[in-house]
């Protein structure tokens, strides 16, 4: 009867152990990782999960076994001991070595994600302004201005792009709650807030950074998978148009029989649409994860990773055109 208690403990602890194996089958697991450094985060997660599972099983098995074996045996006395020096040394030294190993193993990944000095030269810079309760993104028309080739230009370029993030430019493209990038691009974000703390979190990128009032904080990532493409169609016929992309000037042009015209100027008679897979798992969302007031939970944004640079610039220049709408026709360009 008394031994029943060890079984009771054993069953509950076993259930907590098994739930880790059951959860992935129900989809209750890490969402798909799409960033270059996310793999490092996941590996570390699995390493720690393995290590902690090992110690969990070890200690709980010993506990349950001892509860079974050493139940009150009537008149018998227990083993009289005050401890064991060797044992103490062993169970201090081994965890210490393992913990130190984990500690050192993670430094590299952390540096890669967060250290400013390690951030790569950006292919794309975005300014993100958080406020109660939305994310306001701003995109420069010209990304080349913040790019640099060698380390000497890095500081100057960084300063230039931070100043841009703090002071809007006339040509910037504005979008609310939508973060557009393209696949394999090194993206640099400058995040700021107008009011309280927020936290720019993208679970699929394994990325998170709080915003701090009064500060402009850099983040970076590189997405390895895309989830959308920007397609431009003739408004009247619905036929896709051919776009030409100049990878030097980043200019997207519409190819017509009579010649080429900048996409930006043609929004009135073209209809641009983001085509996504429609698969829910490909909806990569931005969530605010630092309490920011009553509608904290509603600061939802979305990450659009375009298939290529051309698609991104088509979206950017089309949006720029829509933002310059001066006619009724252009006013209905973006849905």
């Amino acid at each position, binding site marked *: 009867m008394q031994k029943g208690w060890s079984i009771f403990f054993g069953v509950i602890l076993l259930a907590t152990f098994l739930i880790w194996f059951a959860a992935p089958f129900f989809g209750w697991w890490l969402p798909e990782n799409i960033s270059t450094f996310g793999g490092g985060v996941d590996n570390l997660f699995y390493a720690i999960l393995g290590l902690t599972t090992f110690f969990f099983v070890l200690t709980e098995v010993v506990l349950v076994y001892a509860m079974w074996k050493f139940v009150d045996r009537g008149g018998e006395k227990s083993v009289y001991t005050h401890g064991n020096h060797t044992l103490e040394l062993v169970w201090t030294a081994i965890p210490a070595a393992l913990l130190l190993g984990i500690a050192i193993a993670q430094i590299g*990944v952390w540096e890669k994600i967060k250290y400013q000095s390690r951030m790569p030269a950006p292919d794309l810079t975005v300014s993100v302004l958080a406020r109660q309760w939305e994310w306001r993104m701003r995109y420069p028309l010209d990304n080349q201005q913040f790019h640099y080739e060698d380390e000497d230009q890095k500081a100057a370029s960084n300063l230039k792009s931070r100043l841009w993030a703090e002071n809007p430019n006339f040509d910037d493209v504005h979008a609310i709650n939508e973060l557009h990038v393209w696949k394999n691009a090194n993206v640099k974000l400058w995040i700021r807030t107008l009011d309280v703390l927020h936290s720019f979190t993208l679970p699929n990128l394994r990325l998170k950074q709080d915003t701090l009032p009064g500060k402009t904080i850099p983040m970076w990532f590189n997405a390895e998978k895309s989830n959308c493409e920007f397609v431009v169609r003739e408004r009247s016929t619905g036929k896709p148009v051919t776009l030409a992309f100049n990878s030097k000037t980043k200019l997207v042009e519409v190819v017509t029989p009579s010649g080429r015209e900048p996409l930006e100027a043609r929004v009135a008679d073209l209809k641009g649409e983001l085509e996504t897979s429609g698969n829910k798992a490909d909806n990569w969302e931005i969530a605010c994860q630092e309490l920011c007031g009553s509608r904290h939970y509603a600061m939802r944004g979305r990450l659009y990773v375009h298939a290529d640079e051309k698609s991104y610039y088509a979206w950017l220049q089309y949006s720029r055109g829509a933002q310059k709408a001066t006619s009724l026709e252009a006013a209905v360009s973006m849905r």
Partner: protein
Amino acid sequence: MSVSHSHTTETHAHPEMSILRKYVFSEDHKIIGIQFLFTGLIMLFVGGALALLVRLQVGWPNGTIPIIGRWFPASWGEKMSPEFYTMVFSMHASVMIFFVIIPWLTGAFGNFLIPLQIGAPDMAFPKLNMMSYWFMWPALITIIWSFFVEGGAAGSGWTSYPTLASAGMPAGSGFQSPAGPPSGYGQILWLVSLLFVGISSMMGSVNYITTIVNMRAPGMTFFRMPMSIWAMFITAILQAMALPVLTVALILQLLDKTLGTTFFLPPAGMAFGNWHTGPGGGQPLLWQHLFWFYSHPAVYIMILPAMGMVSDIISVFARKPLFGYKPMVYAIAGIAGLGFIVWGHHMFQSGMDPRLGTGFMLATIMIALPSAVKTFNWLGTIWGGNIKYTTAMLNALAFVAMFVIGGLSGIFMAATPVDVYIHDTYFIVAHIHYVLFMSSIFGIFAGIYFWFPKMFGRMMNETWGKVHFVLTFILANCTFYPMHIIGVGGHPRRYYDITIYDVFQHLQPLNVFMSVSAILLGLAQFIFVANFFYSLIWGPRAERNPWHSNTLEWSAPSPPPHGNFEETPVVYRGPYEYGHPDTEQDYAPQTDAKGPAVVAAH
């Protein structure tokens, strides 16, 4: 060396005390301890009710809340409003931490056990001790009052981060906050209330340290003190060193909110629509440093005493000396020491220099070590024992089993890159509840079942105690364990409704499961309350030493009279001499001059 004199006879000199002096404004450490116990019990139900409101909202975010929904203001449409929800979870945590766990562990058990276990007639400063309890009342009144002020009680989380918590209108234009309804009067009262709690705790700490250092009975050397006393001692030191920092932070935020100072307001100020705070000259991050400099040690304040009590209880019911007494003491000291240099691990994603993060990470990872040592030593204690499964022992063993989970899950968030992902998700919520609910509360239950006979001179009902234990153990795991899983799924904490997110909505069934479990868990606690009050009045009378325990409190009558001991106890050995091969009985009270040869604890 420790003192003890004819103090006992002196206290017997005034037996004619009014009821008021004896039970209300009492200077007797036992009464004060019991007062803390009852206050904590009442607040446990306040905090628990708030927890259930949180679970109702999270479990059924778009539903109509039955019965309760009708009580909400008409403009809410019978649905909990988002600001009410932020208020509810903020106050749940604040009440549980500052009005349940800390008063129970240090206030109730610290007060009751310290003089009894070191063989002193009372605390060093009985008046101060009484004041420490009565300073809880302004705190209680302010915090309860805050629910009824304009905008409701504080709603910026128990961490009250500026600028959400601290934002105010420019000086002179009212105390309402543009950041949200609960950041106004409610936040001010929260700050005031915590200041009172701090004063109360500080008075307690000073008293505990002085009493332990100066008032040990003859023969009670430091290394003959039970683990409970060691834990209370180190906790008191932690509290005395960390509290001033919290107090400063609270005062600074209070000044920001009332006098219009700008300690936490950035130079440009903040815009909330048309409202503007006016310019500032401070830094929001400062609060986080000050707050966590206290609140990380506070996490240990909320578990070390439970560890100490559990060590004692396990040794008693395993009928076996505590395994590795000195390593256990050093482990507690180690946790406390390291505890002061790891606060930054709460701020990895805060915008603090990431290089600082690396340093805090190293210290944090190493703090797992003393915790591991403690666990292994508890296992060593029951190994080869003669385990008696009393309710107290079951709760103590549950503490060990659950502390393993709470401790191990901490390693995930100590690892900076993993923390990037799980920070502010339910994984953190799971972790804190495994440490504070599953560990501290089981430790407290163990302590109550164990010392109830000494406190009230009656025994609690074992059968109902075990029913309560079984239900609590199962339901608490059902309530909190799945939080790890949804945390891995990325479920953010403090969310009113996750179902608007495509990435999170598939986790909702687990939320429903946890909410149902939580409601049942809450109800199971009524068994405990019923057992507690029934036993208080009708329980069988307790003998002096019902558990055959060694420590000094069991050599006093149950309950001990004013002044505790009939005559000053003299201590001959350490507290854990169980199952000595040379004696007939399997225990040897510390005061027993005859018992087995005096063994020095290692």
